């Protein structure tokens, strides 16, 4: 059965120009990720992993090439359309959690719904539901300062999932966590990947984690894809 890939990049490039210095962060990336895949992305520091993630997540725009997601040309969306793309099609989690310290877990998870005009009660009800999905129903009224790193990252995962996106982008989500907690988070991602057919892109420095969870791994080096190997 023929099915077009969910994410497809074509000769994707990103050049940062700071003054006279130009940094080629990405240089001709051709990716094809089918729906429901769990793709690992590895590479040394500065190889362009985060840059690729930001382009796929619609936080940044490429300087050359194109990105297509579910048949839509993401690389040519305007500001407004990109905001909607980020809101509904992708969820992102980061190494430094990036949850708002002044908000409770529940309020953090409900944040993306704020911008779609969902009434407050509905927002909080849905946030609670997703929080119990990630196993945090007990901590829903706690603020980030009262939560462990692993719990904070779970809050971030719940927030990324609240609008039921097609894609979850995870940029070193376990970089600040110990190995046991890391596996807890990745187990959660794996579960979502398997039960909800969520497409996951995971960046990690930890080769063993990638090997354990990813179906496929690509290696970046100086902004280029070096090789791709399947994990049996």
């Amino acid at each position, binding site marked *: 059965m023929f099915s077009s890939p969910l994410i497809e990049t074509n000769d994707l490039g990103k050049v940062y120009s700071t003054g006279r210095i130009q940094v080629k962060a990405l240089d001709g990336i051709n990716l094809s990720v089918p729906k429901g895949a769990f793709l690992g992305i590895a590479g040394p520091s500065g190889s362009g992993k985060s840059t690729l993630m*930001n382009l796929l*997540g619609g*936080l*940044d725009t490429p300087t050359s090439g194109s990105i297509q997601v579910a048949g839509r040309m993401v690389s040519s969306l305007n*500001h*407004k359309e990109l*905001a*909607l793309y*980020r*809101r*509904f099609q992708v969820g*992102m989690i*980061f*190494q*430094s959690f*990036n*949850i*708002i310290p*002044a908000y409770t877990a529940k309020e953090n998870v409900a*944040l*993306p719904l*704020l*911008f*779609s*005009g969902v*009434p*407050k009660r509905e927002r909080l009800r849905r946030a609670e539901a997703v929080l119990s999905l990630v196993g945090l129903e007990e901590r829903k009224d706690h603020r980030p300062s009262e939560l462990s790193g692993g719990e904070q990252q779970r809050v971030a995962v719940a*927030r*990324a999932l609240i*609008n039921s996106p097609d894609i979850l982008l995870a940029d070193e989500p376990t970089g600040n966590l110990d190995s046991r907690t890391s596996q807890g988070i990745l187990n959660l991602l794996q579960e979502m990947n398997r039960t909800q057919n969520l497409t996951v892109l995971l960046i990690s420095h930890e080769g063993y984690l990638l090997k354990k969870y990813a179906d496929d791994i690509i290696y970046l080096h100086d902004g280029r894809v070096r090789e791709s190997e399947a994990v049996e």
Partner: protein
Amino acid sequence: MRVVDSLEQALSNLWKKKLRTFLTTFGVVIGIGALVSMISFGQGVQYNVTDRFQKLDLFNYITVFPAGKQSPFSGERAGSSAESPRSVLDDDSLKEITALEGVESAFPEVRFPARIQFREKTRFSLVQVMPAAVAATELVKLRAGASFADDYSLSLIISDSLLTEMGITDPDSVIGEEITLLTLMLDLSRLNLSDMSSLFQNGKLPFSEQSHRFTIAGVAERMGFGGPTPLRSDVYIPSGTAADIPTISLTSIWDFFRSSGSADEYSMVNVKVDSPRAVDRVKAFAEEKGFQSFALIDQLEEIRTGFVFMDMFLAAVGMIALVVASLGIVNTMVMAILERTREIGIMKAVGAGDGDIRKIFLFEAGLIGLAGGVFGLCLGWIVTTAINWIINGILARQGIPFVDYFYFPRWLNMGSIVFSILVSLIAGLYPMQRAARVDPVVALRHD
């Protein structure tokens, strides 16, 4: 993003930084307070002058005076029509004016000096003659008693400030009491033309004093703004009665030199008409006869223009504080953006549009403006009320009645709040734009 949510976001953000929000808002409070105080002063003056004139019907008064006489109002010499025959403003002219269509009454401005004797005290004052019909209008604000019964009654109206001068504070107590006017009259029998020096040596002036008994019919408020009203004295007597009192009608040395010599000529005739349209009729008559005339209504446009300039000046002074306050808003909000860069980045990463970010900051600015406007208006009320008390307290000692020097029309109350919000929103435009332009990639890059 829904309006309630933007509002809640903005409120909670402001609440998180209470002190800073308070200080910034306080700046706006002072700015708006200064502005409304200034404008309300301008409005107060305007209200006291034009609106009160209107209420007192002063735009229905016109003053006619002989050509070549100095205008009593402008100070400049009224352009005398040299070629026209000089006519005399006498009883005949008075009758002619009274006969004009739309003229309710015309009465000459007759004032003479007299000594007022009351309850063993004597004061020197000017006595003005006034027809009973005019004295009964709102022009004369009675604090006690009533106006004269008719033009021939032997009663008078006295001003409260003259009573105060005599140490009487209860105006009701004097109604019906007897009062004596002592007037001077030229007594030629005393004048020894062959020996002018005797005049000065024995202190015998060629005048004799006559006393006239009246009862006090009413006590009137002394006008705070005497200017163009036909009320310029502390004692008023009816015109018929006045006719029986022989006096020297010189009220100033000026009249002495200017008087044409004709004893029957009035220096001024006050005309009351029933509508501003009749003013033109009286003016035309005056011109035809070669008299000068002055109508307050002609000055109305000039007065209004003057008020516009005054208002603009006052508003400009008041605006200074508000401009400083709006710089405070810009400063506070730019600081808030620097602190909240990461939060803005997070919001954008989870799908906030630039417009959503803008809304939150705009609502914050608007709320500062709203609070600043409401409390600024309150501050303005409090400050102007206090100043009004103080000024009136000082002026009361000089017998000047209570006047509201500040006036807050409804548009000022509403407008100051709207204006405060508007200024704050404008101050918030730059920070808002800056917040919307935060690059989420930069904002989220981990430290």
